[in-house]
């Protein structure tokens, strides 16, 4: 079975996000970037499928600028067999990325597309669903458990108020939620080898994908700062404040 994993280069989850002064986006220059954590979980799951002998070839793909190669090196070091970068100006939009992933999935004839449930930069949570729709494949999103058997994928999904299990016929698209697994640490020798491996390059033009944005971004602004909390002396004061200042009871 052949697995395609999408990895995206995003602002590191530890870094404070700063909106650009002109409101056109967030500051990314000289900002620490790393692999989207949900994509790392998807990748880890694929590596485990490989180790279990279920996956025979694991292809990592990213859509991005030259710096995104670093993300692919990380994927190779974690266990991907091949790495593909589709050239794109940053930041590409979900529908464009989905179209590219679908094109690569067809070209590579994969049986499973494993993606993170969302990227932590835009939190759009759209790419996986759109990829499945464009391919006409079944989808199992928010996966917290994945079992592959007899050409079918059984996916335990995190839903409001519990868990839902769906069974999909392969080929399919599955997106990873936080509890699917805990990704491994990358080993130094693996990183050394990954640095010397080739990265395959593709362009949207060659794949026949129109990269024009469909969504216009009007403005990016910081959330309104929350007012600082106050410490109350006792329950009476708390009740008084809830009644008279907050007006909630």
């Amino acid at each position, binding site marked *: 079975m052949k697995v395609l994993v999408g990895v995206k280069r995003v602002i590191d989850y530890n870094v404070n996000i700063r909106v650009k002064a002109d409101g056109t986006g967030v500051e990314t220059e*000289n900002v620490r970037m790393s692999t989207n954590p949900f994509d790392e979980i998807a990748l880890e799951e694929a590596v485990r499928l490989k180790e279990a002998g279920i996956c025979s070839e694991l292809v990592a793909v990213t859509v991005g600028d030259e710096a995104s190669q670093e993300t692919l090196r990380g994927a190779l070091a974690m266990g991907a067999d091949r790495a593909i970068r589709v050239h794109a100006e940053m930041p590409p939009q979900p529908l464009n990325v989905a179209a590219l992933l679908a094109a690569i999935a067809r070209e590579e004839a994969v049986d499973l597309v494993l993606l993170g449930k969302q990227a932590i930069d835009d939190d759009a949570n759209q790419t996986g669903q759109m990829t499945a729709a464009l391919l006409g494949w079944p989808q199992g999103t928010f996966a917290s458990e994945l079992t592959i058997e007899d050409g079918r994928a059984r996916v335990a999904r995190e839903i409001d108020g519990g868990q839902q299990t769906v069974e999909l016929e392969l080929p399919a698209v599955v997106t990873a939620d936080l509890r699917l697994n805990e990704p491994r640490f990358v080993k130094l020798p693996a*990183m050394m080898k990954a640095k010397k491996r080739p990265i395959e390059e593709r362009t949207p033009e060659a794949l026949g994908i129109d990269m024009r944005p469909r969504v216009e971004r009007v403005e990016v602004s910081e959330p309104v700062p929350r007012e600082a909390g106050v410490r109350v002396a006792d329950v009476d004061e708390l009740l008084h404040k809830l009644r008279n200042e907050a007006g909630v009871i």
Partner: protein
Amino acid sequence: MEREQIKMDVVIVGAGPSGLAAAIRLRQLAQDQGRDDLSVCVLEKGPEVGAHILSGAVIDPRSLDELIPDWRDLAAPLKTPAVDDHFLLLREHGSLRLPIPRSLQNQGNYVGSLGHLCRWLGEQAEALGVDIYPGFAAAEVLYDEQGSVRGVATADTGLQPDGTPGPQHEPGVEIVAGRTLLAEGCRGSLSQQVIAAYDLDRDADPQTYGIGIKEVWEVGAEVHRPGTVVHTVGWPLDSRTYGGGFLYHFDERRVSVGFVIGLDYANPNLSPYQEMQRFKTHPEIRRHLEGGRRLSYGARALVEGGLQSCPKLEFPGGMLVGDAAGLLNVARIKGTHTAMKSGMLAADAVFAHWANTSDSATTGVDRALVDSWIWPELKRARNIRPAFARWGLWGGLAYAAADTYLLGGRAPWTLAQHADHEQMQKQSDARPIEYPPPDGEITFPLLSSVHLSNTNHDENQPCHLRLRDSDVPIQVNLADFGAPETRYCPAGVYEIVDGHGGPRLQINAANCVHCKTCDIKDPTQNIQWVVPQGGEGPIYSEM
């Protein structure tokens, strides 16, 4: 579990200015002399090059001119020449403009971010064929049977808090190398071990340190004066405490503002963090920041001992470079140029030794250091810092002027340095200090500052701040000194909390910004700073 082994010609610990300059110089020599087979790798504990770099910074480009003469054409991020020096004596009310000492005249120097410069140096090094591995911390020195250093091992990952392997455990890797260059910066954890193991400082005075706390602000275009350099002495410190403030305007409407305090300060009630916050409220400083927004925060210890505290660089199998060896020029408040130069000297010595397959045990780097321009520069400056320690601010300023202008730095004496941790008063003898509460505009609470360092550590690992004796924090530090670690730590790592059996020390290791102050200032040297698993700690972007 057995560790994998990787062989290299040279391994460098730390991707700062000295380590990267050494790496670049080694590969330049290898390419120039047709010896492309020389393999050089750099290990960096930060998640990327520059993430753990913190400096003022007004940078003297002398070494960069020597290393990469066409750096201006290669888009090096030193874009703002220092054009306007100010030296102020601050009083609680008012200030006095002092004549600018020769050591603080910055014509020809550049204001910028050393983190940016290191990122750029990292790119230059990689283009020359250096392998840089950020996110991998060197945690252990490896010795061979003869007692020489044969390399380093990276930290294990995935250990549980009790030190046993967890489900994600990966053992570290041994990097075995012909030469090991320790370029860890001030108070490097491996450098300290090697200095002790080979008694490299037997002829040196104790090293003395400072703590620098820094913020980067984005200010309004109307107050931004690129190239303005302000240094201050005096308020908010008393005249017995060595230290001062700095404020530099550089590109992109950025202003670096910070405060350095000598870690030989005596009063255990002193909080370097609070002094730095208070410093910003002085009208001479506030006027640069008002209306701006604070972008980042960080702290780092720096070496101040100079020449008399400098250990021998070379040990069997390798050498110390940069601030790991203590080469900062404290009178000029600059160390990037000396750090880079020492890396280049180390590279020259290592390359010659390797290319000639020399049999001699040493490369002669200590001789090269003394023969280089670093030595006379540090020699001229050697008495300034200890003069302030002896005679306070007024005596220190007077001595510095006399030493510089009357004696030209050629005094026939050398004043000795003392060990910082021995200088702390008992709390019962010390003056209480009351700090004003934060105003939320210019001054901020500690934890909101730490948040801006982007620091993080996995909680599920052994604590990287080790206590040699777990009773000392309460029985000595709290009883005699009022738990000074709760104040000198600029990241809120140390807290005294009330437990069932009375007060106990809680170590919030996840907050640590890797400044090393606790390793230096703890009165009984009970705290040992070791590297956490790689890739953790602060993530500075433009420090």
